[in-house]
């Protein structure tokens, strides 16, 4: 079963545990500046939104890469960057419509979410389940269930 990261911004408190878990897993430091997932704060609106790569099936970054350095990980479905092949041309950062592939000055390569090889550290670290790693085919299940419950209540009340 393929799993995907599912984000529920309504549950996010903006604590950045995900950013630290990500940078620690991938770079060995607690460093939001090196995180592949970013939490955005919209102050006036009072909202926090985690954002990262959603692993497009026909990924723009993968198609744009001139040296085939971005490949499908068959085990996870993630689009992984092969560091030894990446030449740091940054074409993928232009191709990605969502901005989730970024250049890392320190290494001269690009970095993006690779689902931590199938056990994303951000989802484990998130204290509010704003980020979960769930069945890719049923990411809407919980929301459907919540609305189903509401619908059921209304139906019973009017019956």
């Amino acid at each position, binding site marked *: 079963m393929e799993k995907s990261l599912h984000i529920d911004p309504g549950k996010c408190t903006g604590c950045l545990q995900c950013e630290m878990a990500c940078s620690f897993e991938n770079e060995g430091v607690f460093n939001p*500046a090196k995180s592949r997932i970013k939490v955005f704060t919209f102050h006036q609106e009072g909202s926090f939104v985690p954002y990262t790569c959603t692993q497009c099936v026909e990924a723009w970054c993968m198609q744009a890469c001139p040296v085939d350095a971005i490949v499908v990980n068959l085990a996870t479905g993630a689009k992984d960057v092969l560091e030894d092949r990446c030449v740091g041309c940054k074409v993928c950062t232009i191709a990605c419509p969502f901005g989730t592939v970024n250049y890392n000055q320190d290494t001269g390569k690009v970095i993006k979410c690779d689902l931590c090889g199938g056990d994303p550290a951000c989802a484990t670290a998130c204290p509010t389940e704003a980020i979960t790693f769930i069945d890719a085919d049923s990411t809407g299940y919980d929301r459907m269930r919540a609305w189903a419950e509401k619908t059921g209540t209304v139906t019973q009340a009017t019956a």
Partner: protein
Amino acid sequence: MSWSGNVLRVNLTKGTCTSEPLNMEWAREYIGQRGLATRYFVEEVDPKVDPLAPENHLIFATGPLTGTMASTGGRYSVITKGPLTGAIACSNSGGFLGAELRSAGWDMVILEGKSAKPVYLNIENDKAELLAADEIWGKSVWETDEILHKKHQDPQLRIAACGRAAETGCLYAAIVNDLHRAAGRSGVGAVMASKNLKALAVRGTKGVGNIKDPARFMQTTAEQKKVLADHAVTGEGLPTFGTQVLMNVINESGALPTRNMRESQFDGAHNISAEQMAEPRKSDGKPNLTRNAACFACTIACGRISTIDKGHFTVENKPQYWGNSGGLEYEAAWALGADTGVDDLDALTYANFICNEDGFDPITFGATVAAAMELFEIGAITTEHTGGVELKFGAAAALTWAAEKVATGEGFGADLALGSKRLCEKYGHPELSMTVKGQEFPAYDPRGIQGMGLAYATSNRGACHLRGYTVASEILGIPEKTDPLETDGKAGLVKAFQDVTAAWDSTGLCLFTSFAWTLDNVAPQMDAACEGEWTSDRLLEAGERIWNLERDFNAKAGFTAADDTLPPRLLEERAKTGPAEGKVTGLAEMLPEYYQERGWTADGQITDETRSRLGLPA
């Protein structure tokens, strides 16, 4: 390690920024943040210094766990001599600035001297420089934040600034970071402005990577996060209701100081409570509270994000206040509300926004307005002084007018900006100032929570709830229940809370974790992260050392046992209603025992024996 090992020293007189190695010998004794910065401060600053003179230093200090994944590991403190009190000031703040400083590679920033012209300190990793502040001097904290973000074209810049209140001499001006988190108390913002320093703008991309045992650290911090999540207060009460969860609880305990502490229960308490913040307003159908929010690394998320009804009289024609911003915490809601007798939630929220926007402490501000209202009631202050404003208890419009005046220091705002001690002296009634060592009380009436009376009287930074929060034991039963109306056993309780808190602050963690954690939960996190062996006992001993070091500074600054007292109202006037009805604060029953527990003389001086046991500097 998990100290970065670097101190940034900024000499504002000379305009220089230099890096020096952190004194690791001191770090082993004083941990970091509050403790370690105090050690630096007492070494470098004459205790008799005028707080607003160039010779006073201003230290921004992180702890060894700041910037890590330990839950709540994002705190920093500002250490200086406070202009409101003349005592050691140590104001702790959350948000994201502290972690950014660590990420830039600095444990602390020591600012000394005074710049000839307004400047701000720009830090980008190793690079630190003082830049001209012409375009931000005279602006609010919020404007400063916006201007600097635009100027540097970096949305991820973290900014701490003082506002117009500090620039115009408010003695309880704060330093506000990330728009609505504040190093709030004792006037640390006034010290900043006195140095012609407007802001710190910090960008760190290095991160914190020098954890002693990373695998053990990840495991233990994950376990401790679970403890927080499973606890009723940190897992449910605080995220859902914020610190405001206390409003109704403390009122029912008969310990909610009301109308300048004349009464200890407020009939309007429910209207300004957490429960009310969540209720849809009748006017626009939206609740005051939008959602909760976290500071850096915090898995509790007690912060409040709020709005004011667009039609409310305070913001009717001011769209700049129609969006979300930092909402009411309990202490602010109490000071702005119960203490002034105002129960208009949106008016309190507006006053709170103004406190954040122009950088001043809502506790001291609210309590000063409360004192002014009592002075107005007895005729010592009149409409001639206020320019026609009826400064009456319960008047929401008077409260928000006062906030606007203090923000700019105009008119009667200049009097209110003095704090209640100087205000009450000026108008001939010093007894009406509800302060210890010049600093206003927070939201717990010590007649109804006796331990807090002792905690206030002996607090090293003047009246304060964050120096020994015995409310946890006396009201909430954490770690064990004691009777709030009893004085027996409170001396030991207060000492224990004070020492534990001093250690806690110094790690870089938030004190609110202590509802669920003890030092036994902190020690393994410290030990996995930091060089050396860190046990609960060692932390506790460091806490006691830090407490005594602060006390020692105050003694050298001229404070004596005579300053370990409370206003006559709390010692002589009996509580009128509630469980504490008929009670005064039994300070005299607790204080001698407290001195004894501390190993001090009968007149509150640190003995040579205690000094040598703790290894205090001469």
